[in-house]
């Protein structure tokens, strides 16, 4: 990396130091040169780790285009060297390192796609359908075609499913138990086993068609 960039935009953080805090208004984006950063959210009075990212990754990107409250806390895991840019300095960076801009475009692309999919889930009329669609979505993310898949074990937990479905965790737990009783799925410690994904897929599709008709 250009030494000039480091001098202008480089910052260092010690282990445990907060880079930015959830809900803090922000206008800058960060690029990790060295070290690891943990992204967390406080949910029901517990700190949950969303991800741990490292050298070459970007975070805080939502703020680059407009001033928004940060959606998570970023904490240095070890000694971390970062480059911090605001909108204007980022434009300068792109001239020098276009690869970063492309990386950012990819991040946005995947965010948009995820959120579009989430929206599709959320407009389903009932919680069971939402949960089933989340399972379909998770299979799609694994690269599977729900039209061609029957049995599948998904790497997920109640919290993640509840988040994608946009429903409270307690409700989600209850629904999953019911689905288990009806034989559609088996909820294990860290995974969910689906007995017949294709059947679930058809069920959700017909739900969608019925709301479209209304």
């Amino acid at each position, binding site marked *: 990396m250009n030494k000039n960039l480091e001098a202008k935009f480089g910052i260092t953080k010690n282990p445990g130091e907060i880079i930015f805090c959830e809900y803090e208004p922000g206008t800058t984006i960060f690029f990790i040169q060295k070290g690891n950063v943990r992204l967390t959210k406080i949910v029901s*009075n517990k700190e949950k780790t969303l991800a741990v990212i490292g050298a070459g990754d970007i975070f805080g990107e939502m703020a680059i285009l407009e001033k928004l409250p940060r959606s998570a806390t970023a904490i240095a895991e070890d000694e971390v060297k970062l480059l911090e840019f605001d909108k204007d300095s980022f434009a300068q960076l792109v001239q020098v390192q276009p690869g970063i801009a492309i990386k950012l475009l990819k991040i946005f692309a995947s965010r948009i796609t995820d959120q579009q999919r989430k929206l599709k889930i959320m407009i389903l009329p009932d919680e069971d359908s939402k949960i089933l669609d989340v399972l379909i979505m998770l299979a799609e993310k694994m690269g599977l075609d729900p039209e061609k898949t029957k049995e599948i074990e998904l790497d997920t937990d109640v919290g993640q499913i509840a988040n994608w479905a946009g429903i409270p965790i307690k409700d989600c737990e209850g629904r999953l138990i019911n689905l288990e009783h009806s034989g559609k799925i088996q909820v294990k410690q860290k995974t969910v086993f689906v007995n017949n994904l294709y059947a679930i897929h058809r069920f959700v599709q017909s739900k969608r068609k019925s709301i479209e008709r209304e």
Partner: protein
Amino acid sequence: MPQVRQFKSGSVIFFDGEYKDNNVYLLKSGVCSRTKVSPSSRRPELSNVQIGEFFGIKSALGNFPRDETIQVIKDSLVYEFSQKEFESVIKSKVSIIFKMLKAFSNELRKIHIAIDSILTRDTEGEEAFDQSAKLMYIGNYYYSNKAYEQAQYAFKKFIIHNSSSIYIDEVNTKLKEIESIINFRKSGKPVAKPKEVVPSDTGLFKLCESEESLADVLGADSMISSFNELLSEYKKGNFQKCYKTVKQLHFKIGTTMPEGELYERIFMTECRLAYYNQEYKKAIELVKAFAGRYKKSKWLYYTLLIMAECYSKIGSEGNAKVIYNKIVVQEHDKKLIDYVKGKL
């Protein structure tokens, strides 16, 4: 180098949902329509692809199924780029990159708005969360988990962004305390853990604020003047000092618990300070002793209140409720009743 391809009117360049390749296209000539389901209206929206416009970028870059259908209306010529070709072309074109970033972020914002509107519709009234105090809640989380540097960061940011909040004083107090803890740690002295004496409930504290000094009630005496001094330190919020003093007084008095309002007040204050110091079980025992000895005290219900708060803190909500109900039916003090009603 991109390929130039011909498409006849009526044909489809790619379908919504198709997962075949990661090509990006540029319209050179002709007319093509784009059909895309809008996140906000959830209906298919029709638009025309402009000459010189790239399309298929998002799905190509992210390796996703296509999210729109591109149909040829009039015979068209398109440039077809592979993902790699596309990336090398735009690398040097900063303005195009920024245009795309802007377009993406607008799209993302629309989707967020659509999602938020569904979420608020579904959970209306579920969480009455004070939006402006969110940073403070984060600080409180770290503070209660003894992550002081992190709490300091969050509290400082809270103050910067919410300078007129009603919580400013509370946060400043915590910041001062955190600073002294951090400085104490830095000084390298062997860690004799300083007991953090902080009112864990400002309601109870406010309730006791108006207690009169005893000189007005009983006249001068060394123990009385010690107690009055204690009371004034208490009102200033110097709880560490108060707690130390009241324990000394208790030791002086001994185990007998003599008659008289002075002693009632001293023991009640000790109960309260133990509570502030988060020594809940100790406070409960002290209150039991008080209630056993001073059954007719006018301070009995104030002291019982401390016990209820302690039970609540240690998770014995059942016990807490029993005591709150006892307090609510006494006729001594209306302020007390109002406070407890708020708790029930």
